[in-house]
């Protein structure tokens, strides 16, 4: 085995603890999934219900933002403090989000004016 692989054996107690933790995390993720479906449904419903666009636009954007953060942190393990280099990764993702936001702002204002 190459020297850069770190494998630690687990005791039975550790193993069972890990299994329980895993199952709990899965349950959390299923609940988050249900929330995502709910958020999607609300977004579609507000549009179908025909309220004024000026109210709905920010609301559905906000709902999308919440759902995305939920996806990132729950499904994609950005909340996992033990994932390798997760601090650095989070920084990169948030910087990317800020830059993406700049594009959105710019193209909304200085393309047609």
């Amino acid at each position, binding site marked *: 085995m190459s020297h850069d*692989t*770190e494998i630690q054996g687990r005791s039975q107690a550790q193993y069972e603890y890990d299994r329980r933790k895993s199952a709990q995390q899965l349950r959390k993720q299923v609940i988050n999934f249900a929330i995502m479906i709910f958020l999607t449904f609300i977004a579609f419903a507000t*549009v179908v219900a025909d309220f004024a666009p000026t109210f709905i636009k920010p609301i559905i954007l906000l709902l*999308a933002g919440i759902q995305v953060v939920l996806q990132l942190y729950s499904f994609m393990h950005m909340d996992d403090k033990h994932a390798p280099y997760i601090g650095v990764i989070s920084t*990169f993702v948030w910087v990317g989000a800020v830059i*993406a936001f700049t594009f959105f702002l710019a193209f909304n204002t200085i393309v047609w004016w």
Partner: protein
Amino acid sequence: MINTKFTPQTWPEHPEQVTQEGKNKYVGIWIFICSDIVLFASLFATYISLRNKGPAGMEFTSQELFELPLAFVMTMFLLTSSLTSVYAMYQLKKYNFKGVQLWTGATILLGLGFLCLEIYEFYHYVHLGFGYTQSAFSSAFFTLVGTHGLHVIIGLVWMTCLIVRNASRGLNLYNAPKYFVASIYWHFIDVVWVFIFTVVYLMGVLG
């Protein structure tokens, strides 16, 4: 690494993180996703500035064109496929190879369903006369949503290759990170879709 025999108990809790290559792949897919975020941001920005813009007298508008029920069903397919991907990773942790293969297969099927609906939608628009070259709006729409569709196709091919490639090999520390990064990529595709259905379809229908 390939030949070590594991049991569920000796299998590490985070199989994708224990090798140097696994760590590299894990960080690597996230960094790649950051570049993809900016790629889609550019496409979104272009789409937003060209929405409903076309030649004088163009009769296609986003309010009339987009159908919400179809978008909703497509969203459900993709969101659920994200959940099945989560289940596949749960099986990966438990060293249940059959489970990994099964749930990844379910992800692929749901993704295929999404893709078929999208192809049908595109065909419908082209049939109506709203083709790629019809206007700036149509070019922007098909480029943005089409690029997402291309990412879906790539993800489906990737996961299929994984299932086929590993069928005779089982799970080991060499291919566990491969499943994991494919799953992260698939979740990202879903994240992009959340923005697409919000910005393109919902805001399109709003006007």
